[in-house]
């Protein structure tokens, strides 16, 4: 753990940081350069990195990670309501609460592996979701979702100053967290998470986790008790999910039970697989791509399509519009599902593996020697 970072790591981190911080400029040509969307890029990036620490490193496929995301949201919201409008205590509180949840659920679920683990996590997440909708309504406000109100006590704030007039909004020591401030606030946490993930995957702890993934029995036979390692990975990953959930509340002050549904758990699985399981950059990339297309594709409608196909003759255009309208707008999940199936079938390593293969192919094209492709097979990240 004490070894300093290698040169490659520093380059990778610097490159990643540069991309993230320059995203407002880089995303402009794609029409994505507005704080709301970019903030979601950051938040789901954190969620996916956290998920990848569990699934990518240990191979345990959790189908209930949205539970921690939702718990983090609710915890942050309650901190806003009871303690302070400051985002720092909210995030801390969310980390602690989701960590406790992850510890409890992980302790039980990790007693099984493989598909049983998936089903156990799914069962716990569904329990959280169902309870949030029914009995726990006093805490979660059920279907309406939890939001802030003027009349919230906010004891910590009240000790120092009087309530400001107007709707309460989350802040950071008095600085508003709307707009670009919110983006950079989330970006800071994404970078921190990325750094953490990088350190973990290079540490002896990370190696241990990878060992568990490739052969848990052998790890046990060599005398390691693997349980504490998997449990730590599970808790770290759950806490990061909670952090992401809390950040989402900072941006959009509404916590709803929908976020805990198994569909939300499925989404983070999709992101990680799409980008590349077990890689550092992959999950973030997957999260960005899914959020981007969710945003862009779902805004497509018949008019946009008509103008897009305007070069075609009338009859052909109608057919083209009818067919493609099934894949965009409301139906963009169809494209997502198809892409996902294709990725799992043909490219289990996700986009990162695709990039690697293309790079290797170009390497071969370049100097026609096999050595070049071997060298390229070890990418910079």
């Amino acid at each position: 753990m004490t070894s300093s970072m290698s040169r490659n790591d520093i380059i990778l981190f610097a490159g990643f940081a540069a991309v993230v911080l320059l995203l407002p400029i880089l995303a402009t040509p794609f029409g994505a350069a507005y704080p709301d969307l970019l903030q979601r890029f950051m938040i789901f990036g954190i969620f996916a990195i956290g998920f990848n620490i569990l699934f990518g490193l240990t191979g345990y496929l959790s189908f209930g990670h949205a539970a921690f995301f939702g718990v983090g949201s609710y915890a942050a919201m309650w901190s806003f309501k009871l303690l302070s409008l400051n985002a720092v205590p909210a995030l801390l509180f969310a980390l602690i609460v989701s960590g406790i949840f992850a510890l409890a659920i992980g302790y039980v679920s990790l007693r099984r592996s493989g598909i049983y683990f998936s089903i156990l996590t799914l069962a716990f997440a569904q329990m959280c979701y169902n309870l949030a909708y029914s009995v726990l309504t006093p805490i979660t406000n059920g279907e309406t979702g939890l939001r802030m109100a003027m009349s919230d006590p906010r004891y910590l704030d009240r000790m120092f100053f009087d309530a400001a007039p107007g709707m309460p909004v989350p802040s950071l020591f008095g600085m508003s967290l709307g707009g670009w401030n919110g983006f950079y606030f989330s970006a800071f946490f994404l970078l921190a998470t990325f750094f953490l993930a990088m350190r973990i995957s290079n540490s002896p702890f990370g190696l241990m986790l990878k060992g568990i993934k490739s052969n848990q029995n052998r790890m046990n036979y060599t005398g390691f008790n693997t349980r504490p390692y998997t449990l730590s990975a599970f808790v770290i990953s759950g806490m990061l999910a909670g952090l992401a959930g809390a950040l989402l509340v900072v941006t959009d002050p509404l916590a709803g039970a929908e976020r805990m549904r198994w569909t939300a758990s499925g989404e983070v699985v999709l992101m990680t697989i799409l980008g590349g399981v077990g890689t550092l950059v992959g999950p973030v990339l997957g999260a960005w791509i899914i959020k981007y297309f969710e945003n862009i594709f779902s805004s497509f409608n018949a008019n946009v399509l008509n103008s897009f196909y305007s070069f075609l003759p009338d009859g052909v255009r109608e057919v083209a519009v009818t067919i493609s309208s099934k894949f965009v707008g409301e139906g963009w999940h169809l494209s997502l599902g198809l892409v996902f199936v294709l990725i799992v079938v043909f490219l289990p390593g996700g986009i990162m593996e695709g990039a690697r293969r293309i790079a290797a192919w170009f390497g071969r094209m370049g100097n026609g020697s096999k050595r070049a492709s071997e060298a390229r097979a070890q990418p910079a990240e």
Partner: protein
Amino acid sequence: MFEVIFLQFLNGLDKGSAYALIALGLTIVFGTLGVVNFAHGALFMLGCFCAVAFRRLLTLETVTIDPEKLSPWGQPLQVREPLVQAWFGDFGAILVNYSVPLSLLLTVPVMLLVGVAMERGLIKFFYKRPHAEQILVTFGLAIVIGELVKAFFGPNPHPQPMPTDLRGAADIGAWLGMRAGVITYPLWRLIYFLFAVSIIGAVFAFLQFTTFGMVVRAGMADRETVGILGIDIDRRFTIMFGIAAVVAGMAGVMYTPLLPPNYTLGMDFLVISFVVVVVGGMGSLPGAVTAGFLLGILQSFASMTQVKAIFPGIDQIIIYLVAVVILLVRPRGLMGRRGVMEA
């Protein structure tokens, strides 16, 4: 008190039947092909929509404008007449009335085709790959099927009327010699239960008493040896996948009058059905059926007001709670074989 308990027991039967049928198909697929099929709920949902589509076909209608009569709004009256009724008269009306059970005729070939196509087209590439990847690819497939259905039928639920003759309630109490009117049970739910029992019976009989079934059982026990004996076991397993799809589809068709289907229905049932399979024991057909009925009935008991007064919210989580307990204390499930997926 006995009546209340008996009534809750009955109430659990219809849901339990659906769980049992879906879990049966899941277990067939897992037991034969060794594939964890997250798209099985989507097959159930596809069955539901076979019923919807069949009814749409039956109720295709001609619209003629009758200039002599006026509608209450002063426009010329539009006379709508379903084509089947125009062609077959009263018999056509009966056809429309019984569209749900009749759509089984459409469902069986369609689902068989879908199942076989799915297995040959996608699942067969995943026999040797880890369970996690099987889950992922079938999960993606479930999304695709759900979204395709949404593209064609829209996101809203499609209520399906049950045949008018079967709408009443059965006075089961009176049949059993109790006072009349104490235990009444909707007739369609009773039919659904009997339907499920006969399907389950048929599947078991098929596996138990036919040569084909014997070969399949042998293949489930030891695929390699059966293959070495010169039997094309892969083809038989493909057909079993088709049969599992048909069972799920038929379960869906008959369930439509009880719950209007929409495109998310599949996943909602799948999550529970997986829990059912795990509780029953992976790969155990009797286990899946027993656990299906058991959990359906348990859920029904948990939603009694008296129970909910003691444990608030228990009706929402009982199934998952049972699954967690079972997985922790008896990993191979109620009836799972020793050594099958126990890790």
